């Protein structure tokens, strides 16, 4: 296969491939457009217009001018930086390795999924559904004509389908498992099938996402096209944990809204939905072991049944996304007491949970026991942040208990967190806790603890130095509810900043952007998450060396991804400004 042979090229193989295509195709204006992009970006626009108006007439002349092109391109080759070329690819997040040519191909009207030679059986149709979803978002609701009509598709160059070969037979979604894929779209001489090779079906889903971004709807021919073929992409994530937090306690999020969020996450290759289910304000989830807990819901209808939660987990897992459930104890749990008031220190001092009562830990045990039936992710999040312990001292019964056990308020906090950890471990979970637990009694934490950073800098270094694992969510950069935080900051936030030691680096599992819900409900969640979460998603996916040192360099590509989200029905906000900005004036999506 010809594209493999470019591996040994010292120069980026991209230009060479394109030279080939110029000779063969003599698609002069396409090529000129291609080179103009390196040369002087504003020229793109001029050439684009020129190309569209003159294209048919100029074909003949283009063939003549093609004779001088080799000199031109030779001259250019030295000046082109590979980086700017990558920016033209319009793939988000950027794959680890990409090469491409300059030829155009079309998708057949009955573009097929073929799995011959694959060890994976797809009995649960995870792959088939992923393939169908890919075609749906590629068609973008456009009415697509057949593509079998050779006069429309320009004769040959018709891709018949995608051949997927998966070497692992399991469809178990395992954390840390191989998510890599290799995607090959052939050149027009050898059309037939595109190829996708992966270890697991979940890697294949990522490959399908990438393929969907290579496809465009050609409004003139009304068929799906892939430009710049052949493509050869080898890809895998930099971090295994790429999360997004949603908060269903401050505002209830209806099921279709959560599903939309999950779908949008797949477009950016995020893989963990951190579900902050419960907090001070409301307790929306059914807990069969303690059925009064969801009396703490905002209303009788702002609730999730146990089956609803199972359905969300299943929906996410079939898209390669883990669901991390959180109960935030003991500090963010006031709503628990609506159903069981004895969990409060007292009627007028309702938070944190009563540390002195065994019943408190029985309820936690019941919740985690129920969780273990539906939340199959290896981690559970136990919170542990912002614990104001004054209610404990202020309540005589608890003050006495503290005295009896010779505990200070701080020690009681530690006692609570560690006891909750043990309960989680007994249900087979590894634990994630917010960083205050580490900051206060880090050496006492169970070694299986993952510390979730949010407050300050320097925590990641200290956590990994102590041998614990870490997730990065520093609030100044990665809290989506900080509306004044621009996307550039989301892009720039490097989880391994100042961590030089390889072993310590490997303890940073990844990062997470947090969509806290105080001012977020079904009406504004999508535009507050997107496009800023996408900026972080590339930081978490793409190899460090390929990331832009100046985020502004990726603006055009991110704007394109934002428009892609819009086309897919996701209400991603404009880029200009902070989060959730509205367009200030009429204009193209690509320019806002």
């Amino acid at each position, binding site marked *: 296969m010809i594209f493999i042979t470019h591996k040994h090229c010292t120069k980026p193989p991209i230009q060479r491939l394109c030279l080939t295509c110029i000779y063969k195709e003599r698609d002069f204006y396409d090529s000129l457009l291609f080179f103009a992009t390196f040369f002087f970006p504003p020229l793109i626009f001029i050439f684009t217009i020129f190309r569209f108006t003159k294209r048919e007439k100029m074909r003949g002349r283009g063939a003549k001018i093609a004779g001088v092109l080799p000199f031109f391109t030779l001259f250019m080759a030295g000046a082109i930086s590979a980086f700017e070329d990558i920016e033209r690819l319009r793939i988000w997040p950027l794959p680890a390795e990409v090469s491409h040519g300059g030829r155009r191909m079309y998708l057949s009207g009955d573009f097929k999924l073929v799995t011959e030679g694959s060890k994976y059986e797809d009995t649960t149709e995870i792959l088939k559904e992923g393939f169908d979803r890919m075609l749906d978002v590629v068609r973008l609701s456009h*009415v697509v004509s057949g593509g079998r009509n050779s006069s429309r598709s320009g004769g040959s160059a018709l891709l018949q389908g995608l051949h997927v070969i998966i070497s692992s037979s399991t469809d178990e979604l395992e954390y840390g498992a191989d998510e890599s894929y290799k995607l090959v779209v052939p050149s027009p001489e050898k059309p037939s099938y595109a190829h996708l090779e992966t270890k697991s079906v979940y890697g294949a889903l990522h490959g399908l996402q990438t393929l969907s971004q290579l496809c*465009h709807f050609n*409004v003139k021919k009304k068929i799906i096209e892939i430009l710049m073929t052949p493509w050869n992409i080898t890809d895998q994530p930099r971090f295994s944990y790429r999360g997004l937090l949603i908060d269903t306690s401050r505002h209830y999020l209806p099921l279709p809204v959560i599903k939309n969020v999950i779908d949008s996450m797949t477009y950016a290759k995020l893989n963990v939905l951190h579900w902050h289910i419960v907090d001070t304000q409301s307790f929306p989830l059914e807990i069969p072991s303690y059925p009064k807990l969801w009396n703490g819901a905002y209303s009788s209808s702002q609730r999730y049944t146990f089956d609803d939660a199972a359905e969300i987990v299943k929906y996410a897992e079939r898209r390669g996304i883990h669901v991390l459930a959180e109960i935030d104890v003991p500090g963010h749990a006031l709503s628990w007491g609506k159903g069981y008031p004895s969990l409060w220190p007292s009627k007028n001092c309702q938070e944190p949970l009563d540390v002195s009562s065994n019943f408190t830990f029985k309820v936690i045990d019941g919740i985690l026991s129920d969780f273990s039936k539906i939340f199959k992710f290896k981690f559970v999040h136990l919170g542990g942040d912002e614990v104001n312990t004054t209610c404990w001292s202020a309540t005589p019964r608890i003050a006495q208990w503290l005295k009896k056990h010779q505990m200070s308020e701080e020690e009681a906090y530690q006692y609570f967190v560690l006891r909750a950890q043990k309960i989680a471990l007994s249900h087979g979970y590894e634990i994630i806790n917010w960083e205050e637990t580490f900051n206060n009694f880090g050496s006492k934490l169970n070694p299986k603890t993952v510390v979730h950073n949010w407050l300050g800098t320097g925590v990641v270094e200290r956590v990994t130095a102590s041998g614990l694992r870490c997730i990065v969510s520093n609030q100044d950069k990665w809290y989506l509810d900080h509306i004044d935080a621009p996307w550039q900051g989301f892009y720039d936030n490097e989880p391994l900043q100042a961590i030089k030691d390889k072993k310590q680096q490997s303890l940073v599992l990844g990062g997470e952007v947090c969509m806290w819900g105080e001012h977020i*409900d*079904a009406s504004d969640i999508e535009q507050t998450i997107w496009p800023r979460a996408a900026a972080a998603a590339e930081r978490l996916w793409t190899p460090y060396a390929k990331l832009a040192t100046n985020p502004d360099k990726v603006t055009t590509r991110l704007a394109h991804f934002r428009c892609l989200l819009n086309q897919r*029905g996701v209400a991603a906000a404009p880029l200009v400004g902070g989060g959730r900005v509205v367009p200030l004036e009429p*204009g193209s999506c690509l320019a806002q």
Partner: protein
Amino acid sequence: MSPNRNLLLLLLMFLSLSITSSLSSPSPADSPPYLWPLPAEFSFGNETLSVDPAVALIAAGDGGGSPIVRAAFERYMGMIFKHASGRASLLARIRFLRMVEYDITSLKIVVHSGSAELQLGVDESYTLMVSKKDEQSIVGAVTIEANTIYGALRGLETFSQLCAFDYLTKSVQIYKAPWYIQDKPRFQYRGLLIDTSRHYLPIDVIKQIIESMSFAKLNVLHWHIVDEQSFPLETPTYPNLWKGAYSRWERYTVEDASEIVRFAKMRGINVMPEVDVPGHAESWGTGYPDLWPSLSCREPLDVTKNFTFDVISGILADMRKIFPFELFHLGGDEVNTDCWKNTTHVKEWLQGRNFTTKDAYKYFVLRAQQIAISKNWTPVNWEETFSSFGKYLDPRTVVHNWLVSDICQKAVAKGFRCIFSNQGYWYLDHLDVPWDEVYNTEPLHGINETSQQKLVIGGEVCMWGETADTSVVLQTIWPRAAAAAERMWSTREAVSKGNITLTALPRLHYFRCLLNNRGVPAAPVDNFYARRPPSGPGSCYAQ
């Protein structure tokens, strides 16, 4: 029970509810379901009925078997039984062989007319009866009866609003049964304008908007396709026109537009296209610069050239194949004729005909009207055409109000039909108009004669697109468009009497949450400014 007594009863219930609502959020069990828009006549009882997740559709009448009815039934079943438990109990039922007995196991839809024609004034009335099947009741289960399939669709929407998922029994329940509802719209034209020129709206987003319109029983999507900023639609007769699109990706093919029309029809919604001539058409010249008076003075369209009218005729011929609705909007607003005065060849042409610029404006609009009429279309024009040269307008013209509050009054006095869109209240891009002002705006204000009232065919809320793109369009439309939707659907008495904080607000809160539950990002009701985030944590029903 008389409808008035029902209303009184309902009012009392809202009153009692509002007292308790500060303590707890609405619980469906002890309050009547919150229907929006309020049906014309209804009565209800005190029973609670459970609905079978496998409820069967029994179609009857000439139109009962229509695929539009079948598709709508499937859609609504998906919405009503969206909780996972619905399916679980279905499984349980199969397992225990009818261990679970449901009160409602079938939904009968009787449609008298077999016609699928959707035009202005199509009969949208329906009756909806919900009762337990027993020896005493003549009608069992649920029956929707309508003259047309579109009436049946309205009935299905109302039925879906009666159904509530009960979290304790994990089944869908209908409270306050038996229900008897007899309903019809007050106005035949209940519109929403979208603007795909200032910002391109992807097809999927337009479909989301159409789907959400059907929840509020709106029935006309006014598609302001083109304006000065961009020309996104393909017109095969003049293929360079969509060069005026923002980009290659921000375009609609002819097939896309047809698909939107089909999608809307499936929901009983007409699509009225607009080409706004001659004042809002600069983007046309990107593909055909001859349409501009000159390269430096590009608007309005060149009135002197036959080519201008050839292009209009070509566009309308192409659009006629896509849009079967009888109304076509020709715009005609905000025409600044300076370019005509300042361009030599246009100026000479005016002088040659002894035209003022105002004469030329009239000439343009009337000629465009004749083109539309020749294509079997009824022209709709913005009100400036009426206020500038009303007596010359074709008598079939529908005048579309926006500027002056009493223009419909004047237009109907002259025998024209009128659509009400007073910008002070029904322009959704005006973010400082809270829901109650939208609600209290009355299209028939100041029009007292019945014959003149009939000429006001309805109203329309306008979502102009300067600052509304995919990311904010739905939350700018909702929930305020719903306030206007009830004004246009429900009886004038129902929406005009009493304290709307008691009669309407709790139901609007509920409807906004219903939209959210169906995935529509309707913004909080209580914020003064539209599309702002919720002010703090809280229940959807209280924001």
